[in-house]
């Protein structure tokens, strides 16, 4: 499947190029350690990631990869040692203990263990979270009952945990996390104890929260049934984000690349590798994307909108979705031979010079195709 691995190793895009909405989570250059002195052990290495509202992010990776540590740092449950974490617009390292508690109140936490109070009913356990948000009592009661009903527990509201199955308990815990409609939901193996139907019920509910009120969901899981529902896959190994794939973009890039003559000779794997290294970038109307005479550093694929190609002050072409530009300077090593300007709002997928040349070296036929294109344009 081409769309399986389209990576978007996120660097913060140049501010001048676009003004996208503030991400719910922004992590930059995050290092973290356990232990002290000689026993100090680095567990996270320079990780950066941004999670916009409305995205269901699934984190995978082997045990000890640092997924849970990253989750606890984003959840303001630990303090980061190096780097910066912004959650819901607040930089965590600048907040006092009390302010961190306030941040946590805006996050929905789903733990692997349900951690319900045995002495409280399902409704009362959910109410423990609901009453963290000030509001009228009837409204709070309605929210508690409503979320339990949506989780298929309408008939178990007054049951204590010991009278519930493992899956039902976990659903109560999920209800506790969702009852306040948090803008960020952090979940660690939330479906580990659930059967297939319950899992799909929970995932659909989480997915619905991303649609209904734009919650961002960050979930650690090994459950492949969930991966199919994810908007984005983040894979961690040894404390590093090794791949970060927006599945919607991946599909779109593959759809664009596949019919292009240049990429036709690539195997699905090679096509995926190219797509894996492409980053999405937005340009406002009138923005110059590349300028004639400047050195070539990136290859561009137009996703949405239209660009104008200008050579010697004359428009020579207009390119739209699926068209690409910028490859000539990368092949020849010569300066840009044209200026490209965004006609309106334009979204592009961008491949860096190094990644482009790596792809070039991957396939002899790809290289031949490129040189053919190059000579056609000259």
């Amino acid at each position, binding site marked *: 499947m081409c769309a399986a691995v389209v990576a978007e190793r996120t660097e913060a895009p140049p501010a001048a190029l676009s003004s996208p909405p503030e991400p719910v989570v922004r992590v930059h250059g995050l290092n973290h350690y356990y232990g002290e002195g000689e026993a100090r052990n680095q567990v996270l290495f320079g990780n950066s990631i941004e999670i916009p509202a409305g995205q269901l992010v699934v984190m995978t990776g082997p045990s000890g990869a640092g997924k849970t540590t990253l989750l606890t740092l984003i959840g303001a449950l630990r303090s980061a040692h190096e780097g910066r974490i912004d959650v819901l617009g607040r930089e965590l390292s600048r907040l006092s203990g009390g302010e961190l508690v*306030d941040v*946590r*109140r805006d996050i929905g936490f789903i*733990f692997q263990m349900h951690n319900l109070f045995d002495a409280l009913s399902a409704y009362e356990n959910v109410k423990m979270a609901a*009453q963290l948000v000030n509001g009228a009592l009837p409204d709070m009661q309605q929210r508690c009952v409503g979320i339990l009903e949506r989780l298929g527990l309408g008939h178990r509201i007054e049951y204590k945990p010991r009278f519930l199955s493992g899956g039902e308990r976990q659903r109560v815990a999920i209800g506790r996390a969702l009852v306040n409609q948090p803008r960020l939901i952090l979940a660690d193996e939330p479906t580990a104890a659930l059967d297939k139907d319950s899992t799909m019920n929970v995932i659909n509910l989480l997915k619905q929260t991303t649609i209904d009120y734009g919650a961002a969901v960050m979930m650690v899981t090994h459950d492949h049934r969930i991966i199919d529902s994810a908007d984005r896959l983040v894979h961690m190994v040894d404390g590093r984000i090794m791949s970060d794939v927006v599945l919607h973009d991946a599909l779109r890039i593959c759809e664009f690349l596949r019919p292009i003559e240049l990429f036709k000779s690539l195997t699905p794997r090679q096509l995926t590798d190219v797509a894996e290294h492409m980053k999405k970038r937005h340009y406002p109307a009138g923005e110059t994307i590349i300028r004639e005479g400047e050195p070539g550093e990136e290859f561009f694929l137009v996703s949405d909108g239209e660009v104008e190609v200008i050579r010697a002050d004359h428009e020579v072409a207009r390119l739209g979705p699926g068209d690409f530009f910028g490859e000539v300077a990368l092949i020849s090593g010569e300066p840009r031979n044209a200026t490209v300007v965004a006609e309106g709002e334009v979204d592009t997928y961008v491949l860096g010079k190094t990644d482009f040349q790596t792809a070039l070296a991957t396939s002899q036929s790809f290289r031949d195709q490129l040189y053919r294109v190059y000579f056609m344009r000259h």
Partner: protein
Amino acid sequence: MTGLFHFRPTVPLAWRILTYDKRRTGLALIGIFMAILLVFIELGFFYAVPRGGLLLYDNMRFDLLLASDQYEYQAQPGTFPLDRLDAARRSPDVEVATPIYFGFAKWKSGEDGVWPDVFVIGFDPASQVFVPESINRQTGVLERADTVLVDSATRPMFGPLDTGRVVEIGDRKITIGGQYVLGTGFMGLGVVLASAANFARLFPQRGLSIVNLGAIQLKPGVDPDHAADELRKTLGSGLQVFTRTSLEAHETAYWTTRTSVGIIFGSGLLISFVVGIMIVYQIVSTQVSRQLPQFATLKAIGYPDRSLAATVSAMSLLIVVAGFIPALGAAVGLYSVIRRQTLLPVAMSEMRLFTVLVAAVAMALISALLSVGTLRRAAPADVF
């Protein structure tokens, strides 16, 4: 959001946790019931002991009490010359000065041939120095030669205390002229009142020129503290002048700090208090430990530490209050039994109730403080 808002779940959650585990909480209640009951009992004894020491004085009329500087308590009063009391009587502040004589003698007419010691109090019957009506209406009896009045609380080992019975005290045949109601306190197992003349007959080698106490009544309107100061200046060294307040302080200090009785009940009180703390701490910290992930989860989702600490405190307070109420009822019953069996003035007073309630709340708060340490182990990062 207000700070108060976050305390909303405190009491309900504490209540639900405690009532959910009924067996464990039931055991805790029995434990704290016993601890609080022990505090009541020990405190009852602790305060009753000095009251027992003050029993005689509470039933005497005086504003100042003159005693030797060797005075410890009634049974070890020390002595001083009568003319020192006469000197006090000459003070312009003094209305009446009555000598009081104390002595121990063998009561040779006990049950089964035993010779218990009897405490003999000698005084001038006309002085009306004692308050009980049962004494004052029998002053004529006291004036009779070799006749005494016997305290009704004198133990059965002294044999029948019937009026007219002739007993042998020391080397004299003495007639029991009647009984009076006052209580023996810590004066002995048996106490008799005698006129000064009869006292002199019982203790011929001593005479009446050496006294044990002087009961001084001041003229109306005279400030006892001022008069005491003046007497101290006039009488010089070798004597103590007690006001009622300073006498009570002296007796309380003596019985609570210088006798084994006070130390035993005082340390018993302290141990009961500590045991109470440990019981509550044990129960609450066990509950917190058992539900550490749940408390960590509450921390993680945004409950401030103070809110969870308040929940733990509420658990402690609920246990203690639930244990206090039956302990109070049991203590009232036990005080009654103790009064009957020991003749100590052990009684439930508002102050006693309030003191134990404060002690119980202190138990709860200290144990809560210790349990909060357990709560600190609830690390929200660890629940992931």
